């Protein structure tokens, strides 16, 4: 992929699709889903404008930028995931990736999930952002960070063990769902601890 045309070979700029995955986990193509007004509002916009368009959305959207230029925007029209083709995932290496988390029931900004941290490593994303309500979250691990040297399975184990130990400290055991307010605190503590030790470059900014 040339630096001048980072979106080359990725199809349309605006994508409202879900992946079709077979029983063995193989990618078999995509199916169309209903586009959202927010997706259309993100298209051809700067990252700040795109993030403002999705900050309070109740469905999840994502956008990828290379050198400040939008490569594509995408939604699954679902609240908690966005699917990418293998080619789209490859285009994220070194890029800036942003997406939104629908805020909690009382407007709580929702930080990164463990799935986000895993995706950052898996796709070697340069800067990984999320916006939720009035808060923007970012992870930009420095190039020499221990994070990049961590095997995927090891990272998953460290995230899970830290998350569970913190959750236990707040008085919740087992796998039952947590109230949003507690989930936010557990995730934020987990991200801060992993940042302090592996070097996530984790920060939060009130918009």
């Amino acid at each position, binding site marked *: 992929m040339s630096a001048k045309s980072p979106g080359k070979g990725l199809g349309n700029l605006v994508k409202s699709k879900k992946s079709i995955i077979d029983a063995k986990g193989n990618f078999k193509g995509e199916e169309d889903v209903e586009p959202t007004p927010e997706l259309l509002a993100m298209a051809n916009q700067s990252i700040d404008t795109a993030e403002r368009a999705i900050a309070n959305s109740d469905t999840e959207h994502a956008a990828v930028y290379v050198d400040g230029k939008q490569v594509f925007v995408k939604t699954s029209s679902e609240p908690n995931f966005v699917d990418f083709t293998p080619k789209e995932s490859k285009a994220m290496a070194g890029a800036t990736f942003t997406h939104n988390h629908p805020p909690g029931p009382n407007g709580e900004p*929702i930080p990164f999930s463990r799935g986000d941290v895993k995706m950052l490593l898996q796709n070697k994303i340069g800067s990984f952002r999320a916006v939720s309500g009035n808060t923007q979250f970012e992870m930009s691990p420095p190039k020499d960070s221990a994070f990049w040297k961590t095997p995927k399975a090891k990272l998953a184990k460290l995230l899970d063990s830290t998350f569970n130990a913190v959750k236990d400290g707040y008085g919740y055991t087992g796998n039952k769902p947590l109230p949003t307010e507690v989930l936010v605190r557990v995730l934020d503590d987990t991200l801060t601890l992993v940042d302090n030790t592996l070097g996530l470059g984790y920060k939060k900014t009130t918009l």
Partner: protein
Amino acid sequence: MTKNKNRLDDSELANVDENATPDKKPLTEEEMAELRKKLEAKLRAEVQKLLKESK
């Protein structure tokens, strides 16, 4: 759990129950600070091991 390796999976963010209550007494703020220190030390030891292994 999805089998899609290319999915941005934030499903844990939807796994909430606003009426859930703690199973046991939560730690005090001081005890939580102590727990965070312990967890950070444990993670640091893991990172040192990782860096040694990657050399």
